[in-house]
């Protein structure tokens, strides 16, 4: 548990949530993806984290008193690509090429999220990725719906229908995702 605390400070400075939509704005296309998981741990796996701090001390306080921890930890996000924007046209399909190495990853804007999600069509590439489990899909839907503002409900219905078509062989999966979207 303590080792996890060490990684926490990085999250607070730049929080990426499960199902969040990210964008890489370099290369020929703006490439969009959804966070399907993240893994944090020491840079050197042979030197595992050891518990630090005093009982009752919060994670933030521990971080603050041990600034070196942050430097030793890495957080790796896995991102499933769900679409791209090619010269102003949003396409909810995989881009022809992957984003360049070392390019910067940013959070997508609300407007971009809604465009790329394209009434739920972004679920097609997303569901094709085994990493996108029910929790991720539900989170991604919630996130885009939230970004849609007043269009939240219509987006959820349209995307839900898209999902129903994609999951027509798995009605129980459809049900559990939709339950997670609108509890």
């Amino acid at each position, binding site marked *: 548990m303590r080792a996890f605390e060490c990684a926490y400070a990085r999250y607070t400075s730049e929080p990426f949530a499960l199902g969040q939509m990210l964008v890489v704005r370099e290369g020929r296309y703006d490439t969009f993806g959804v966070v399907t998981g993240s893994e944090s741990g020491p840079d050197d796996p042979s030197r595992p984290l050891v518990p630090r701090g005093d009982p009752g001390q919060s994670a933030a306080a521990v971080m603050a008193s041990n600034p070196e921890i942050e430097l030793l930890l890495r957080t790796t996000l896995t991102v499933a690509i769900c679409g791209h924007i090619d010269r102003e046209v949003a396409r909810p399909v995989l881009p022809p090429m992957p984003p360049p190495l070392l390019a910067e990853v940013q959070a997508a804007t609300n407007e971009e999220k809604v465009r790329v999600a394209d009434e739920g069509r972004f679920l097609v590439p997303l569901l094709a990725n085994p990493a996108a489990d029910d929790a991720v899909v539900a989170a991604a839907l919630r996130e885009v719906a939230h970004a849609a503002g007043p269009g939240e409900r219509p987006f*959820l*219905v349209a995307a*839900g*229908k898209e*999902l*129903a*078509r994609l999951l*027509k*062989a798995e*009605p*129980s999966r*459809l*049900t559990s995702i*939709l*339950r997670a*979207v*609108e*509890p």
Partner: protein
Amino acid sequence: MSDANPDATRPLGVVVGGSLTKGLEVRLDPGQTAQLGQYAKTEVGGGLSILGMVTDITLKSVDSGPTVWPPGEDEPALLREVLQDTGVYTALAVDPYLELGENGEEPARARRLPSHFSAVHPADQDTLDRAFATDGPNIPVGAPLGMDELEVGVDFERLFERSAGVFGKSGTGKSVLVLHLLDAMLTRSTAAATNSDRTVALVFDMHNDYGWEMKFQGPSTSRLRSLKQRHQTDIELYTLESRAARSDGQILIGTRDIQPDDLEVLRETLDLSDLAVDAAHACRRRFGPGWIDEIIADEPSAAVVDRLWREPPEGDVNWSQVAAQMGYPGSLESLRRRMERLTRREFVRTEGSQFGDVIEHVVRSLQGGKSVVVQFGRFGNDLVSYMLVANMLSRRIWERYRDSTERSEEREAPNRLVIVIEEAHKFVDRSLAGQSIFGQIARELRKYNVTLLVIDQRPSQIDPEVLSQIGTKFTLQLDSDNDVEAIVGGVSGRSGLRQVIAALESKRQALVFGHALPMPVVVQTPEATNADSARASLRARLGLPEREETSPAAALFGAPPDSTPPGDGR
């Protein structure tokens, strides 16, 4: 069925399957609604569109999932909303009927199918106008479902050129509709140039609906003006009761007029056994035209005894001896009792043969261009009277029409006669359609210029062969599936109409289909009123000038010859 207001500009849905015989399957678009009996159209390419009717609406599920685990009450609303049109959807069955070209060609029977995913739209007014356009005179029968602006007309000529039927359970509006049709017939006939151009009706009016006035539960009136009030000089009113008001004559039947054949159709109503009918034939053969008077006498007359015995038995001969001698021990007695009861009716006169005169007058009226209404008064509740009179008159009048038609090389063919009977199934039920004159008229189509307009609550009881000869059917709400089946049974491959009939409202809503219409239509029948406001449009539809004027025939030759009706009526 109630009026819906489908958004006519948006498609109803898309074609997802179907066949010409079984109809199209259309997947309803989310948010659209459709109702049974509504018209839909779709393009088939080459500028052609197909017009059809929604004959069924089904809820379908793509697979069993949503139906096996339907979202419960407490599930998020989103789940239900999402499953609509994805996991589950609404499918329409659309029966294709007509093919319409771009350039106003005559609509033709649908012979093509649209391709998959063709958009299906609610039919617009323009399309329906074209589909139901008639060149000739037509009788408006109401507005199709959800299209109040449009009034559909049945082709006048085609309606009466074959037999027609009005079916529906009690109180659905059969009589009001028939009055409307007859009113139209008379309006048109009055204006015809010659008597032979007139279509006339012989109405056996069981419940006193079509004479002076009709009982009616309307908002402002309890009586509807009937034919005699609307067409004074073109209607002759006969009654069975002797002192009936406004009667132009009384129907009288002499015992000598009744033939054993006339009893055949009464077999069931009179509860006559086959043997008793045989006995009637035997009596007619042995005792001559006065056979009924003979057998209803208390004692066998000398003439009867003479006919049966070369050497009469000792003493007074009684009826059981006669019966034994004739070979009808039980049945002659039962025949006697029934004839006795039959002849007690006031319009039956013993030892008389007044009927010939009656026939003469009725035929002269009919062929002279007047319609005849026979009112049964209190005999309307007596099926024996109704059937006896309707059958005897119709048979003899039909024979006269048949003779006139066959001689028409020398003379002018007679005008067209439509015989109107109620409770038709009593006359043409499965067991006796063979003998009934009405079965014969229906089967012979218009060979002798005589057709039927049958009114019935129980079409399932009518001989299917007769039913299949009925060209145009007006079907109001029916009581049972059997009746619905009987009506659509004869329509090849159009079983979809079954659901449409089953969904009719309980009053004034009718499915009309057959010979006089290009395609079936569900209409709200015209509002019946005593007001004259509807007459102008009726006249226009019938191809007549808006205002009534003296008919050309009357102007040239005077009114049709007035026949002085027989009997002691008036």
